[in-house]
């Protein structure tokens, strides 16, 4: 498929719209059965909305409201993406990104075809992929091995194998309502990520990661695509509501109004108990020790 697209690469250097159109025509040809919203594994993580806006290339850029716009990475990056994929990802996910590595075992690693650019972009740009330890129960966020452009390139190549949704979200935070976001966060997110967004350990070595240092678009990607154990929030949250949550996370969770002194790490009563007992009672007992006789 990448070979058949090579002629467009010349055009890509000159015009942006050209290759997009070109790929779109190929995409339409191969994905005519795709609905723009989630029906199964393919297109997982697209909002359940039949109202969609498409760009000139025929790709869905929003799902009925302007709170989030979705972009598909430029297919001109696909060649770069393929070579990056072969270098960094293929040893587990296989050369065709179908989760079958060279030794032929299938089922051990996820099939990436059809998952949509947002999924690929989230895992690479949060530093979780390429995995530091492929045997770990859950990958941790770390400094990304690949930069943003390289992540987009890999997403572009995988998308070229079977064009799918959702694209990479761009959240319009200006009109989002932080109060609604707080309520939705308490309802949907706090049960794992904790109400202060610090994350915590879940069963059997899995954990809900901290939300303190996650950029806005990655929060939206995670909500829509449900990485790892996280559920995909597709039908029950509109793009407006996702934007509200993203605004709450990127403002109040990441920059809490910590009035009342040191926040004690957001550990709640555990830290408070230690401070109260060791610093409070302990110091006062020491003062008593100092005031009293010691024989």
């Amino acid at each position: 498929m990448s070979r058949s697209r090579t002629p467009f690469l010349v055009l890509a250097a000159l015009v942006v719209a050209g290759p997009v159109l070109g790929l779109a025509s190929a995409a339409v040809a191969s994905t005519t059965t795709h609905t723009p919203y989630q029906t199964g594994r393919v297109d997982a993580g697209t909002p359940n909305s039949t109202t969609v806006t498409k760009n000139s290339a025929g790709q869905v850029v929003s799902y009925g409201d302007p709170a989030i716009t979705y972009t598909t990475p430029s297919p001109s990056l696909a060649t770069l993406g393929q070579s990056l994929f072969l270098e960094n990802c293929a040893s587990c996910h296989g050369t065709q990104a179908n989760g079958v590595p060279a030794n032929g075992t299938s089922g051990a690693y996820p099939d990436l075809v059809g998952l949509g650019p947002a999924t690929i972009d989230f895992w690479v740009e949060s530093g979780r992929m390429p995995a530091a330890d492929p045997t770990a129960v859950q990958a941790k966020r770390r400094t990304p091995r690949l930069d943003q452009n390289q992540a987009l390139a890999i997403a572009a190549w995988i998308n070229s194998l079977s064009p799918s949704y959702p694209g990479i979200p761009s959240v319009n935070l200006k009109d989002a309502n932080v109060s609604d976001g707080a309520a939705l966060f308490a309802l949907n997110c706090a049960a794992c990520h904790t109400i202060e967004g610090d994350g915590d350990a879940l069963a059997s070595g899995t954990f809900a990661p901290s939300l303190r240092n996650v950029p806005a678009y990655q929060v939206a990607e995670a909500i829509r695509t449900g990485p790892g154990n996280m559920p995909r929030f597709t039908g029950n949250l509109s793009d407006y509501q996702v934007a509200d949550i993203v605004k709450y996370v990127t403002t109040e969770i990441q920059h809490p109004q910590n009035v009342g002194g040191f926040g004690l790490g957001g550990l709640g009563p555990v830290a408070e108990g230690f401070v109260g007992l060791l610093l409070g009672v302990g110091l006062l007992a020491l003062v008593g020790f100092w005031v009293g006789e010691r024989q």
Partner: protein
Amino acid sequence: MSQTVTTKRSQRESAGPYGKIGHTLNELDDRLGVAKGGRTFLDKIFPDHWSFMLGEIALYSFVVLLVTGIFLTLYYIPSQDLTTYTGSYLPLYGQKVTEAYASSVNLSFAVRGGLLMRQMHHWSCDIFVGAIVLHMGRVFFTGAFRKPRELNWTIGTTLLILAIVNGFLGYSLPDDLVSGTGIRIAYSIILSIPLVGTYVAFFLFGGNFPGTAIIPRFFILHVLIIPLVILGLVGAHMGLLVRQKHTQFPGKGKTEKNVVGSPMYPVFMAKTTGFMFVVTGAIALLGAFAQINPIWQFGPYTASRISYAVQPDWYMGFLDGALRIFPAWSFHSFGYTIPLEVTIPAVIFPGILFNLIMVWPAIERKFTKDNALHNLLDRPSNRPKRTAAGVTVAVLCSMLFIASSTDVMANFFHVSLNTVLWSMRILCIVTPIIAYPVTYKICREMQGFAGAGKRKTTNVVSRTAEGEYLATPAPVYVDDVVHEHEHEAVAIPTFVSEPVAEDEASPSGVRRIPR
């Protein structure tokens, strides 16, 4: 003829030997007879040992609790009626919240000094219960609860229970997401009581959870009923203390028949007043600089919402830990369900624990057959069985306390939550079993070791002219010559009613009075 000249000196002399204050006191005494009681009070002897100050931390943090609590009641609205939050905290603006929650957030953000008062109130509660537990440990391990002080031990234990209960009620009042979860757990614990659980729960909550009655009911219990009972029991605790006089550690000049220490006036009064300011100051510093319970971040409680990683305040931790690690056992039969995984750790276990603590003096008397009056304290090492029993219970409760943060530990150390859970299950059983013999053995070793508790002396190394090195032990410290740390044969339990030896030298700065 002598002329009467009014000078300052003659005025002073005419006022009598006690001056104007003395005159006023005399007038009071003529009418109310305060001299006798006042003299007893001012002359009350307080032992100087530092461990006797632990109870005072509890007393003074209770005073802070009362003062800050009165401030909070001025602004808190004990109601579960829904209102729209329109205060200054943006993420809550426009949300439907209860009056209780809105007023708690408002008193934190909109009332001058409100957040400081709320944080001081919460910190002093943590310190209050902590100091009670420390004080209780001191009383237990030194045997201060023995005859004639069993009643005061019972009062103290009741105070601990009331403090824990009132702490729980208090942190539930803001009606935030975290405390609402706590109320939900308390409701389930009450439900789990066999036979009467549902009736008791519906009675207390005025119907099914959450209802609208619980916050007003908790409020009255928290600010009126339980504080009054605590206040009364604190009075009884102190009254008995004055009536029965202090215990003291054995030592030079200290016998079963006397109390050695500083009198209330002036030494102890200065000391304790200073200590009160230190306690108040420490709580004020914590309230000003350490955030506690940021309820605005938690949001209001609704039954459909929950936050992960929720722990109760530390004094409820051992119960939470027991609930967390108990295996999922339950009993289903005859159309009834008894959730043993809740009933055993949260109802039966604390029931046994607190009853055991209450009746411990009687249990010990039964075993030692010691019916004598005791005013001199034990060294813990001289009572290895009691010390080992106390350490066992303390270790169990500490392990359960640690178990209440299984998720925090798993997250912090990057290990599986299941591993932590099973580790805590094993530790909670194994560590108390190990603690008893180890403590017992250490106590016995300390009894047998003559130098225990004394400072080591230096070795003076000298070099002779021939180049030979000699190490000579320096003489023991003068203070350590007194053999107070040495193992005394465990007292034969009889009350020796010998008179106080009059020729014993009184240590400087202390007074000794017969009982």
